[in-house]
């Protein structure tokens, strides 16, 4: 039966995507950028919407939530997957509300006023059937995909507003967003870039070679020299893996030290992060926040005799509190860290924060 084929094909695709996620996460950072992951997740969700069997919005949301939980369980540290799932859920809710004809509520958040005036539980369980819901949802997901494709360009377009000539800019590790940002600014302005190599994966080396190919004066420094050279730096521009709900960052290890050094010298810290990296998580779960990879990167097996008597740690991420950040540059413009919670309410529905 064609339907069954479609279903098996669909589940195959989902399985393939899951295994891809699991494999990527164990290597040095991500072998694919977050943008790619976001795009793939969204196309997969579109396919699910198109091919899965559902009759009303509630069913669809159930299916997506189930698949979403599986996907995030595959690689918990890759938060863009969960973010995209939440975005799609929000799209479904909106389309449903539009189809029903009810005006969208301006404020989705729980407020005391709403509790008092709503009188009882919220009306719909999304059980009504609308014929055009599927088409609308798929169209909306397509819009989301186009937005995703344009994020890097949107961010790079703002580069000239933030970089003046003869500046010294410091960055750490490798971020494709920051790379595009700096390359765009380099077309019109001349400046220097100092890249901290970010041991043990040393992704800063790739970043430096790619920047220097565009004729940007680049210098590679070891992580230990971050504070030593910070006094001559005008701006620090970094990318991040996730933007947390309080405005803090989960970024590559070494970023917290960089942020502290920048604060000490009163150097502005600018984070270039597209909106799909914004995640409704808070940083308070100590055990689940960190991700570790093999300590072989830090203390190789050639050090044989002492290995058994020593604990070696190799964390991948760092938490940067929002007080150390000056500005977020995203595809919708520049924002202060104190505004992040507001942006989050526009992107995700509060009931979707827990998948």
């Amino acid at each position, binding site marked *: 039966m064609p339907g069954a084929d479609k279903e098996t094909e669909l589940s195959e695709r989902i399985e393939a995507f899951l295994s891809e996620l699991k494999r990527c996460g164990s290597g*040095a950072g991500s072998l694919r950028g977050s943008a790619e992951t976001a795009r793939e997740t969204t196309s997969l969700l579109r396919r699910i919407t198109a091919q899965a069997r559902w009759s009303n919005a509630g069913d669809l949301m159930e299916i997506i939530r189930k698949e979403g939980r599986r996907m995030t369980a595959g690689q918990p540290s890759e938060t863009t997957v969960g973010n995209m799932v939440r975005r799609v859920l929000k799209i479904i809710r909106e389309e449903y509300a539009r189809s029903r004809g009810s005006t969208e509520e301006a404020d989705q958040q729980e407020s005391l006023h709403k509790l008092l005036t709503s009188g009882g539980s919220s009306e719909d369980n999304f059980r009504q059937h609308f014929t055009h819901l599927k088409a609308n949802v798929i169209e909306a997901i397509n819009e989301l995909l186009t937005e995703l494709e344009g994020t890097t360009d949107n961010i790079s377009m703002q580069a000239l507003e933030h970089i003046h000539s003869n500046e010294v800019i410091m960055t750490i590790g490798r971020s494709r967003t920051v790379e595009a940002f700096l390359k765009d600014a380099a077309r019109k302005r001349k400046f220097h870039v100092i890249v901290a*190599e*970010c*041991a*043990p*994966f*040393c992704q800063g*080396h*790739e970043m*430096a*070679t790619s920047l*220097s*190919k565009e*004729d*940007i*004066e*680049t*210098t*590679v*420094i*070891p*992580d*230990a*020299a*971050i*504070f*030593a*050279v910070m*006094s*001559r730096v005008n701006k620090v521009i970094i990318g991040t893996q996730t933007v947390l709900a309080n405005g803090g960052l989960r970024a590559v*290890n*070494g970023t*917290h*030290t960089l942020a*502290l*050094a920048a604060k*000490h010298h009163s150097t502005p810290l600018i984070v270039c992060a597209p909106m799909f990296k914004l995640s409704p998580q808070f940083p308070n779960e100590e055990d689940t926040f*960190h991700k570790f990879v093999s300590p072989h990167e*830090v*203390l190789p097996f050639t*050090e044989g005799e*002492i290995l058994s*008597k*020593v*604990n*070696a*740690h*190799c*964390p991948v991420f*760092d*938490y940067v509190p929002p007080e150390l950040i000056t500005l977020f540059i995203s595809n919708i413009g520049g924002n202060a860290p104190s505004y992040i919670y507001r942006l989050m309410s526009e992107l995700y529905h509060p009931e979707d924060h827990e998948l």
Partner: protein
Amino acid sequence: MADSDGRQVDGVNHATGKIYRLKLFFNNEGKELTKEEKQRLRKEKKQHKKNKKDDKGPPEKEKEKEKASVPAPSKPATQSPAHKAAPAPVHASESAAAAEKPAKSKAELRAERRARQDSERTSKHGKKEGGQQSASSKPKATPNELQPVVKRLPEHVQVDDPAALKKLAKKLERQQVRQIHSHVPLRSDYGYKVSLFSHLHQYSRKSPPTLQISIPATVIHPSIVRLGLQYSQGIIAGSNARSVALLHTFKQVIQDYSTPPNEELSRDLVNKLSPYISFLSQCRPLSASMGNAIKYIKKEISNIPSQCKEEEAKGKLQACIDSYINEKIILASEAISKYAIEKISDGDVILVYGCSSLVNHILCKAFEKQRKFRVIVVDSRPRLEGREALRRLVKKGIRCTYVLISALSYILPEVSKVFLGAHALLANGYVMSRVGTSQIALVAKAYNVPVLVCCETYKFCERVQTDSFVSNELDDPDDLIVTRNGKSHLENWQTVKSLGLLNLVYDVTPPDFVDLVITDLGMIPCTSVPVVLRVKNVDQ
């Protein structure tokens, strides 16, 4: 006219009015005056001045000391009436002061000079007398004299100045034995230097400094050549190790030294050491501890009395060096360990950075004293010295954890104390140490973890510095290249025009990050370093 002890001091040629001062600086044997004899001469002249001030007045003794010829001897006659007023205050002040206060005599002289300048037009000599008077009274100067120090900027921070480079090249050429034309080679820089650091040298480990030395290099002692190579290849690293190796090599040099005829051991040996020191600084810039050690040796050598026989002098010098090593390094580390162990309590989690021989010694001693603690060793590329520290501590049986410096924010919440070693302590309270130390202190401060720096007093130096740029050392940039998964991105960094690699060796930590400095004199705050320096100078 002869002086009291029979030397020809000056002969006055009444015909031309010029005073011969040619014989002034030669004693009976015709050799140059040694430092003691010059000092004695000056003291005698002062005595002379005191005795004769009533009869002849200041102008005559000033004339005796003048280096340039002065006009006719008839001048004293004309000057003395003019100076009748001046000598009077001179007498009064001189009789009033028990010991000659240099400040007062300078002021008196200035008054005399002004009066003299009014009567005659030889104003140029005035400054010289003032200088000579203060020079003669220097031995009696009290420590609270704030003498302006005019320092010459060291060569190794003037790489971008072509004039300074030329001077260095000339100096190295000059340091050659007269007969054999071999000299200390000038090492050339390697690779593209980041513009902020173009004033510093950047050498490559692959081109050793001995490439241009001819064989036999009789200017440079072979053990010095070996030491220089060990420095430049990084075989001997760490400020204590380098100083000790230097002192042992100097002992060897002194052992092999023989005074040439007609030379004084005290002066000739110092001259012999200069090309060695230039060679070593070409191999690797001298550290503050090495600088202090060299100063000490030179002082000891020049204080050898001339009557001392050669063997005796050599033995004395070797004993001096041994006692220096023993006191300043070995005993100092024992004293520091004693103080530091008081600061380690049971259940502590101690963070150390890199490999500091002193900190390792402290931890081993504390472990022997049955303190229960565990250690976290933080390491950084490209030197990865922490692994050496890790090996030593694990061998002792101490429980250790090992992380790289980028994981510092992760590991710091567990830490209760941070122990850091130092390369030098600067006079404004800044701590100069391995690059990365300031970062550790910064993050520890953010987490409110106490930072303790352990440093012997012989590493204290008079320099002041506020950032890590002006005076630093650039290591071989190729060290930053790493091969991961078979790929190394920076392999051809030299071919890319706009790419530079920066491998700093040292950085300075501001004193507000450091809570305590443990030295062999006790536990002091960072800001008390100039006090210790002052006390040391008075002692010496």
